[in-house]
């Protein structure tokens, strides 16, 4: 067992950290308040080769692993949570194409995603299909070499801004979730429109648009995996996405912790820095421990993915633990800042609002526990 990064990994992370410190961090507050998709940051992610970390080099990617993708996601999220979330949502389109796509699909769709020339999004959630992802109502009807899509998606991250969408629709409702089918749909396809952008508690600059399909014709050649193979595509994509959410939570928690330590060491009450009080020290100790656990679980899940081992249970564990830990950490970071932490003067006010997201998206905490428990019980039966 080796917990150390290789020299190559260290150099890669150092380069990303420099970009985070010089570019992302100083703008993070502005990005949060702007309410506009941070195109400049997103374009720079592409320029610096960060949009295709695990994609093969022949398709313009870096040919690295999901571990590298995870650590970089953590750094981005720590510097600018919104940019980190965009990076994560992008992979929800890139990964299924990378994993399930044919050579032709990869040439056409993976390459522009891996280089960051195009941004990706993943459309699963619908008004009646949230946690119950199998209940997707968007219909896909075959018509010759095409499928006709009808229905709508909600909450889609990067929605409207992304150029490439992986859309989950049902090609055979009689078979329930076994009828689900994954399509690659390009922005600009006739019959594909954007509706309402959700007004959220945080992440104001991350688009979460409604996607509307009205007799939208998509070539059969754009099916990922196979017709009625969409459930597998969905589950695999969500599993990788859970690592992405865990990573975002770890990065955010670390940022909140760093802010809290710095504040505790400078804020003086009763003639001493508040970090001198054991009550504050214990908070810091718990926060740091929470972050360390989250990080190790998350890296382990990513490592298992890279090793070709089953990683879905670990990804769910990482996601539920890291997101809940992140909320605890951000809550205490505000507490340590006292009244100032409740004001816009300090970034922890934003961190506190942002943290909640990670407990909901890509499967709520409850759903993660369901996934974990299902696995545990199955494993117990097999024994």
């Amino acid at each position, binding site marked *: 067992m080796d917990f150390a990064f290789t020299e*190559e990994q260290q*150099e890669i992370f150092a*380069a*990303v950290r420099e970009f985070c410190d*010089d570019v992302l961090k100083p703008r993070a507050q502005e990005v949060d308040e702007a309410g506009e998709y941070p195109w400049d940051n997103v374009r720079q992610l592409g*320029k*610096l*080769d960060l949009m295709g970390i695990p994609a093969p080099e022949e398709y313009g990617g*870096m040919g690295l692993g999901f571990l590298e993708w995870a650590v970089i996601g953590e750094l981005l999220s720590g510097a600018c949570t919104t940019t980190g979330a965009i990076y994560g949502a992008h992979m929800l389109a890139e990964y299924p194409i990378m994993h399930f796509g044919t050579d032709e699909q990869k040439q056409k769709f993976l390459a522009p995603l891996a280089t960051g020339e195009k941004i990706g999004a993943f459309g699963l959630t619908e008004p009646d299909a949230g946690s119950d992802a199998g209940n997707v109502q968007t219909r896909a009807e075959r018509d010759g070499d095409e499928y006709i899509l009808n229905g709508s998606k909600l909450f889609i991250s990067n929605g409207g801004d992304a150029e490439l969408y992986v859309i989950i629709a049902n090609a055979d409702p009689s078979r329930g979730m076994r009828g689900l089918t994954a399509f690659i749909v390009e922005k600009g396809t006739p019959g594909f429109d954007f509706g309402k952008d959700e007004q959220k508690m945080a992440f104001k600059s991350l688009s979460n648009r409604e996607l509307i399909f009205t007799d939208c014709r998509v070539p059969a050649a754009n099916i990922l995996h196979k017709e009625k193979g969409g459930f597998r595509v969905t589950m695999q994509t969500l599993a990788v996405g859970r690592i992405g959410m865990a990573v975002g939570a770890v990065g955010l928690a670390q940022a909140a912790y760093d802010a809290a330590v710095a504040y505790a060491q400078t804020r003086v009450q009763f003639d001493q820095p508040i970090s001198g009080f054991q009550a504050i020290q214990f908070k810091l100790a718990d926060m740091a421990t929470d972050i360390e656990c989250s990080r190790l679980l998350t890296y382990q899940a990513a490592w298992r993915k890279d090793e070709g081992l089953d990683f879905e249970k670990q990804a769910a564990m990482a996601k539920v633990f890291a997101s809940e830990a992140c909320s605890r950490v951000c809550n205490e970071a505000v507490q340590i800042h006292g009244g100032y932490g409740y004001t816009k003067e300090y970034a922890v006010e934003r961190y506190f609002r942002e943290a909640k997201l990670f407990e909901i998206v890509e499967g709520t905490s409850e759903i993660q526990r369901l996934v974990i428990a299902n696995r545990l019980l199955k494993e117990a039966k097999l024994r």
Partner: protein
Amino acid sequence: MNFIVCIKQVPDTTEVRIDPETNTLVREGVPSIINPFDENAIEAALQLKEKHGGKVMVITMGPPQAEKALREAVAMGADEAILISDRAFAGSDTLATSYTLAQAIRRIGDYDLILCGKQAFDGDTAQVGPGLAEQLGIPQVTYAIEAEIEDKGLRVKRLLEDRFEVVETRLPALITCVKQMNEPRHAGLKGVMKARKAEIPTWTAEDIQADTARCGLDGSPTNVVRIFTPERGREGERLEGECSEVVHTLIQRLREAKVL
């Protein structure tokens, strides 16, 4: 077009201290970086290459560990790098340094434009660039804030204290670059990987046919006698209070000091 960028590895100035006993820079534990103005020179070269095609070569004279600075430049996008390193170069002043760089550039041979930072953060002399141009007998334009290549000639906008000056010259030439010239790019991951694998040759005094009497300490007429932090002069005074009152007191003080 062949571009040569001369860079220097310097201690990160935000972390530098002077040892009061020896009056020398304390370098232990201080991270080394590319001299910030040299990053502007690299960026300028990369932009010119993107526009006109060609090759960007980066060179540095320094100890073996200066290779790291060269790799950083390759990560930014430089095509090739050469480390000029020899015990004989130790203790070089600006004259010996520009001589050594000139010898290396003579060996490289084919070039159109040499770019340097306007000065090094640690030495602050701003002499090596101009010295190098003199050694090579080519035109030099210092403090460039813009540089355009037009019809095989060079058009440079210079940033002077109170004005801009636009100068045209033939190529090959040398320019020194100011901070305001551009925003040096960050290294992308492909650059980082390329830099890891890049072969960086080391050229010794012999390789560049340098006359060792003109290198290092032997070739350096400048002697640093002492480096010290200047004594603080008189303390300033801060006037506080109502604006009108402060202005009144200020005028009174200036009159007393016979400034007004």
